């Protein structure tokens, strides 16, 4: 009962601090973007000033900045991210609704793959220390960390799509696993490697600790020792890594989307920034911010569950 209460208090506190954090994020994004030279309707071909004024009036861009800011924050509070300036017949909400499921699918698949495969390889490497089970995967892990996605992505396409014709070299069909494999692999690879190295290190530490030795001395089979006693502490550092990894997967997906031509919000984000699509960029920034806050919160909860020494404090 006491635990549940502590948990609730912790959750409420974190959610309360999340609101001002998001306001700061939105304000900074809004301010920085408006401070950048040029506006959303500065095309390469300049338009007559009178026409430009009439377009700006349509979007309230002719008002003083503080009023535009208040107008935007008011909309934001109501969940309305405003119209996109770049795609003139579309709202930011519509763009995110159509693009975000793509990022969510790729991001969660990559993160899950990284956690499962990485943990497995890390554990095996630790158990079979200094054997080829250790050396070979760790060599690949080092390569995986070193290679950026914009190198791995085109290489995967070259081999599996262009040469072997096994898998599509990009494109997206909602619900089709075939189209997921290459982008998820490219996105997950560095995280698989990172998790594997982390789990290996952590496992070596834990397996050498006195309580494991005690368990082994009591005659428990290796499998029981690992599953019942060692696994939780081994995975603790991985869980604390989920938060930053999630942020990395989000930003990493911008490159993956570009390489594989996927219709996610990462590409909107980049073209939006270049085209000064103020509402689109601020909207996606706030969304990214909110996701990272939620993910960190979940990671903290898991952490507390895995390691009873960690107390939830709001």
């Amino acid at each position, binding site marked *: 009962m006491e635990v549940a209460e502590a948990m609730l208090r912790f959750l409420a506190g974190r959610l309360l601090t999340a609101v001002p954090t998001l306001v700061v994020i939105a304000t900074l994004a809004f301010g920085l973007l408006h401070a950048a030279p040029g506006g959303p309707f500065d095309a390469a071909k300049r338009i*007559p000033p009178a026409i430009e004024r009439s377009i700006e009036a349509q979007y309230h861009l002719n008002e003083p900045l503080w009023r535009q800011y208040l107008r935007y924050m008011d909309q934001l509070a109501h969940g309305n991210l405003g119209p996109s300036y770049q795609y003139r017949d579309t709202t930011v909400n519509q763009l995110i609704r159509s693009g975000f499921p793509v990022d969510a699918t790729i991001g969660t698949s990559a993160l899950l793959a990284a956690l499962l495969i990485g943990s497995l390889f890390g554990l095996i490497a630790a158990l079979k220390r200094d054997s080829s089970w250790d050396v070979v995967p760790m060599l690949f892990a080092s390569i995986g960390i070193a290679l950026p996605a914009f190198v791995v992505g085109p290489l995967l396409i070259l081999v599996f799509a262009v040469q072997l014709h096994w898998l599509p070299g990009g494109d997206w069909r909602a619900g089709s696993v075939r189209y997921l494999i290459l982008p998820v692999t490219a996105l997950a690879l560095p995280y698989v490697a990172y998790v594997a190295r982390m789990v290996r290190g952590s496992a070596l530490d834990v397996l050498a600790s006195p309580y494991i030795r005690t368990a082994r001395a009591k005659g428990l089979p290796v499998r029981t020792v690992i599953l019942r006693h060692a696994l939780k502490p081994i995975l603790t550092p991985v869980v604390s890594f989920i938060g930053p990894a999630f942020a990395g997967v989000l930003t990493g997906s911008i490159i993956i989307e570009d390489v594989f031509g996927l219709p996610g919000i990462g590409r909107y984000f980049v073209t939006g920034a270049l085209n000064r699509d103020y509402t689109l960029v601020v909207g996606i920034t706030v969304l990214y911010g909110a996701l990272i806050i939620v993910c960190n919160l979940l990671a903290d909860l898991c952490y507390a569950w895995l390691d009873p020494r960690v107390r939830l404090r709001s």
Partner: protein
Amino acid sequence: MTASLSTRLLRSLALGGALALCACGNRSPSDAVQTITVGTRLAASQVVNRGLDAMPRTLDPSLSVDTTGQDVIGDLFEGLTTLSMSGQVVPGVATAWTVSADGKTWTFHLRPNARWSNGDPVTAADFVYAWRREVDPKTGAEYAGALSPIVNALAIATGQAPVDSLGVTAVDPLTLRVSLEAPTPYLPFLLADNYLQPLHRATIERYGESWTRPGHMVSNGPFELEALIVGDRITLVKNPFYWDAAHVHLTRVTYYPLDAGPQLDRYLAGGLDFTSGFVSSQYHWLVSHLGSQVMIGPYFGTVMLAFNVIGPPFEHNRDLRLALSMAIDRKILAEKLSQGLVEPAYQLMPPLAGYHAPVPAWASWSAARRHAEARRLYAAAGYSADHPLHVELDYPTSPSERDFFDALAAMWRINLGADVEPYNEEFRVLQQDNELHKTKLFWDAWIGDFPDPFTFLELFQTGFQQNNGGYSNPAFDALLAKATQQTSVAARYRYFEQAEALLNADAPYIAISFYSTMNLVKPYLRGVKQNIEGRNLSRYMYVLEHGGR
């Protein structure tokens, strides 16, 4: 027509010139209708996947500003005129037209069998509605200025005249009369443009801004909209009500907005049949691996460097400007830095049938003679080894093209001893600096809106909003004004030629190259022809029987 500059223009930043341009004067009827020879074996599935440089900002023809949206909108809508496979103007909804003696009143006769995709007839009133909507300030159309040849268009767009005073009248359902401010021989070409397409009034009034969504849009072109996912794809299907549907072979066309790299990946993997471009540095590899699938052609655009002639060091300093221009070895830039994809340019206007562009005499000199003259002019301008020119060359960010600007700087250093520092800025930042005249020497480029010298020469007209360098010459302005009053195209062109010669002598800019169109086209995809407009309408395409990929 430069709105998609961030993609299309930058991609070919380093293209030092274009191939020798064709004289595109022949309008062959077979070019406008796709008739297939008997015995040709067509594929059972007439479906084509096309790459696009970027996602069009909108499919609303009135609001569209980017080159990337042109073919999509051209597939969906048809104006009074349209373009043939080779980019020539051919009749569209209008079957014929007459021009008054003063060249200012045009009467168009519409075909009675033109239909909207819901079966409604296309009438003159649909054009009147669309054009009024385009110039109505309430619409907020960025390119409303494109209608400026039409009586009152600019006054309406700037809120100084009522919308119904626009110089366009539906005489009867099949006759449209257009009144112009001045003779505009290129009007038939403008009529094929996005912003002069007819619109289905009932649909727009019913759905408002969302009329361009799949399921809402009613269009009158060879295709209709089936699906659209922003940033992902636009799918069109054949419009059964199109008046010439019998000659449209494709049943489905899907456009994928992608960068050049991913377009190539997907082309090689079999996911695309036609790319909207490729990376110029990959040209040799592509030719050796894909052969005739690599298609190159001249494009109606010029890459240049412009001088800011308001203030030092380039104001009243023709010698210095000319010295910098003559010191550049355009052939080396084209061959070594643009993979030989292009040829050098020495004047503003890309080749155009009937127009004799004045090429400076020094263009044909030997490099040694040209450099010697450049050094003489440089010295005459007051510069020397002890007192070299120091100036920044501003260009839009494009990391792969840095070597192009380094090469330019090296040529100036070696041939003149001038110290030019290439400096890159994000495109919109550069644009703002140009507007404020903060830049001295900067990269500039232009793609003609219509095949007429005016679309290029007006860049140097006094007070023109795009006159980035602030050039002003009353004699040049007078020649332009004279040209635009002529009713005969030949007389019009002669005045433009004189104006351009004047410009060459003054050297307020340095021409570097003409753009090229660059596409990859699968051998089984037919009905594609390179043209200076860079336009490829899907209505002419068909797929031959093939073994895949």
